[in-house]
């Protein structure tokens, strides 16, 4: 239990997917104008990341490793993840329309988002087991959601702040993002080395 908690903290905060690994920056800048949509995006990404970590692990161990096809990893991951997300979206629309209303519009947007693809690739690189892979996917999603909501909150405040003309819009958002990334560097060392 302690290991799991440490791993989640390590992945969500110390090695945050957005601010430390710099993956998934497009939704980070694009869908962070309002807290509501940022949160929805975060939930959808968490969902997709968990699912794709599992799908990629199965693919890795059922096909790529036994047949020595490591060079097809990126290609086949993209195909499988995109297909799984599409399938889940259809199934969700049929079985749980309420959930679909919350996540539905974001799901097609992130089918092969770089963070969603990056986490399974990193998992494969460090040869994690199935449980750990899924946990990594989930915790990365939690970290992503956290950062999205934090950043959206900051941007909502920025709307009210007096920003110099030349910095208005995207520039000040990037400055804010870099300050947030600096703040996240403060988590380095929170989890003892070897804990993750």
């Amino acid at each position: 239990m302690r290991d799991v908690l440490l791993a989640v903290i390590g992945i969500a905060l110390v090695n945050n997917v957005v601010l430390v690994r710099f993956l998934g920056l497009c939704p980070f800048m694009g869908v962070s104008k309002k807290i509501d949509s940022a949160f929805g995006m975060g939930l959808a990404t968490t969902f997709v990341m968990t699912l794709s970590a599992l799908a990629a692990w199965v693919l890795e161990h059922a096909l790529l490793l036994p047949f020595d096809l490591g060079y097809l990893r990126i290609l086949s991951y993209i195909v499988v993840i995109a297909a799984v997300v599409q399938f889940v979206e259809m199934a969700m629309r049929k079985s749980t329309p309420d959930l679909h209303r919350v996540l539905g519009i974001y799901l097609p947007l992130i089918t092969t988002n770089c963070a969603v693809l990056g986490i399974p690739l990193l998992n494969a690189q460090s040869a994690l087991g199935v449980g750990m892979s899924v946990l990594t996917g989930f915790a990365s999603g939690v970290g992503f959601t956290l950062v999205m909501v934090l950043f959206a909150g900051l941007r909502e405040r920025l709307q009210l702040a007096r920003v110099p003309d030349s910095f208005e819009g995207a520039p000040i958002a990037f400055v804010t993002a870099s300050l947030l990334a600096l703040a996240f560097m403060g988590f380095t060392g929170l989890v003892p080395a070897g804990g993750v």
Partner: protein
Amino acid sequence: MEQMITAVMSLAAIGSGLGVVLGVAARRFAVEGDSRVEEIVAMLPAANCGQCGFPGCEGAAQAIVEGEASPTCCPPGGKVVALAIAGHLGITLGDDDMEEAPKIAVIEDAICIGCTKCYRLCPSDAIVGAMKQLHGVFAEACTGCNQCAEKCPTGAITMQELPATAGTWVMPKPPMAA
């Protein structure tokens, strides 16, 4: 050579396998939505202004079809849209459901400072104008969603009743009819 065949075959198998799965799923999980909803959406102004209290015109259409909302819930559409929807669904409207004629935005020339705030807000692109130029409203395009009037810094925009035309006039009920 052999490895190339393995690679090509396995990717082809994955691709076609997933293709079949998705194709079957699209049939299997097809949502047989109420076709009336789409028809009602087509009749509504599609401004997604939210004055009805539902999430966009699609939400309103859903509620109208399910009977949770009256066809008169759409202020921008006004009586014309309400009557059209009621006729389409075979509902009769109550007497006092909608007395107001549809309203559209009107810009007072003397007060407009040309700030383009309304122009940027307008969901139906009914406002023309540029920075420091007098703005104008296209009466045909305005859905009366009131967003511009709320944001106008000088109060130059007011919502006024649309002058009756052949397309919007509705015959008043005879006073004696019950």
